[in-house]
């Protein structure tokens, strides 16, 4: 029973997110409850909190791009990206995102995982271009369509990254698999592991290209009458 009590943090997280409580508060409550259930005192919990918080500061480094992105946005970066897309007659939302998916996945598979990102690429460039491609065809977009296109742009960045990077031999996940299997008595080279990520990478690319093709069809069906 006391073992199962340590799962209270998992329960708090699931309930808290389902009820849409403030995520920061939910996560802190879950962490404190888990620590208490595991028999750690409050001082120990807060100390562990600070240690892990500092150790994971690197996750916030993406925000350092905001001063640049904000300054460029103020001076019309999105408008310029949209004007550029307007000149390409063949551009559609789906095709543009297909191109970004290909670039993202190929660069990630070469280990260039920094080439992309939601703050540096999707918000200032990819999402405005994808929206503009739809606007050029169908005029002013309803808000829901606009948000759907943006969500797809964000998803492309993730999917290209996740299923591209695992082909590269020196990426964190491959090294983690290798380290874990090594210590369990199965010595392998990173290449032996990375090789088996290729079939899934191809499947991910095919599935996502198909979904983007369907996105174009959906935009055509829902908005096409107006053009």
């Amino acid at each position, binding site marked *: 029973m006391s073992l199962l009590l340590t799962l209270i943090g998992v329960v708090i997280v699931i309930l808290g997110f389902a009820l849409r409580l403030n995520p920061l508060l939910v996560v802190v409550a879950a962490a404190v409850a888990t*620590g208490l259930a595991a028999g750690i005192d409050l001082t120990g919990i807060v100390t562990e909190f600070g240690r892990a918080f500092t150790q994971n500061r690197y*996750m916030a480094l993406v925000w350092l791009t905001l001063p*640049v992105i*904000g300054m460029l946005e103020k001076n019309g970066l999105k408008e310029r990206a949209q004007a550029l897309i307007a000149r390409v007659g063949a551009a559609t939302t789906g095709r543009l995102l297909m191109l970004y998916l290909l670039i993202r996945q190929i660069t990630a598979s070469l280990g260039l995982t920094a080439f992309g990102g939601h703050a540096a690429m999707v918000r200032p460039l990819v999402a405005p271009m994808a929206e503009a491609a739809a606007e050029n065809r169908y005029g002013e977009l309803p808000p829901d369509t606009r948000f759907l296109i943006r969500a797809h742009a964000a*998803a492309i960045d993730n999917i290209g990254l996740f299923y591209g990077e695992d082909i590269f031999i020196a990426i964190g996940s491959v090294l983690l698999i290798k380290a874990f299997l090594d210590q369990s008595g199965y010595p392998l080279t990173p290449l032996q592991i990375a090789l088996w990520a290729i079939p899934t990478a191809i499947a991910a690319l095919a599935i996502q290209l198909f979904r983007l093709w369907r996105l174009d069809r959906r935009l055509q069906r829902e908005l096409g009458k107006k053009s």
Partner: protein
Amino acid sequence: MSVLDGIYLLLGLMFAAAAWFNLRDRSDPRHLRRAAFWALYSATFLFGTWLPPFVVGCLAIGMAILAGIGLGKAGAAEPTEIERRAGASRFGNRLFVPALLIPLVTVLGTVLLQNYTPGGKPLVEMKDATLVALGLSVIVALAAGLYMLRQPVAVPLTESRRLVDAVGPVVALPQLLAVLGAMFALAGVGQIVAKEVSWFIPVDSAGMVVTAYCVGMALFTLVMGNAFAAFPVMTAGIGLPLIVKLHGGDAAIMGALGMLAGYSGTLMTPLAANFNIVPAALLELPDQNGVIKVQIPTGLALLVVNTLLMYFLVFRF
């Protein structure tokens, strides 16, 4: 002090500026809460390297409490359409240069920092190369932008304040989730779940074992928010004893495809905040799960693909 510490100082200054502008902006009654939130976050970067962990822990919990009582809506004015259109026609394609410098310099910088080792010693620690390169790329892009667009030096700071206020407290969520992961690890949450789950698997069916491992990886990642946290637990609990030892599967294939099965979970969970919740906030989606909803079909399809691939490949090589 390492180079990376210097870059954290820059980040601290950026959040300090956000705190300062909110403090001075009385247009919204909750501006003080926002000022306090960004000031606390700023302190974790400005002094984080030197503060005792207990103090940083208190700062982080303070941030969560402030976020819980509500920071209100962003106060900073959006740049006007006239301003943006004027900039777009005045600067044209030059606007892309600083934007593209960020990824280009990051990539080049990473390669250089990892390979340039004067006197056999790298300039920065290998694992920090990308992070340092990202920091340097921002400095380069900022300098290029200020020069090319002839902007006042305060503009990047007022604009970053606008953007961090727009994203809101979610800015700190990935880090807090990492804290939760550390706490789960400390309490052994993973081992408990794996033990409970393994009671229910019919171990003599190779297909069931593979399915349990792949689906388990995805579900576990869903709950932990991180496939890296799920992998050791599921692999020690199910993968190695059942797939490799009992049924004679190949360890490399199990490991590679198992991790990828976990990524299906990453695509579908709000706990992978940096991939799913942060972009929803950055793109100003009204639904914080908007990105996840788009990713669910791909996540499920790839889970099926990975399970089938493992079933057909893992016993064959």
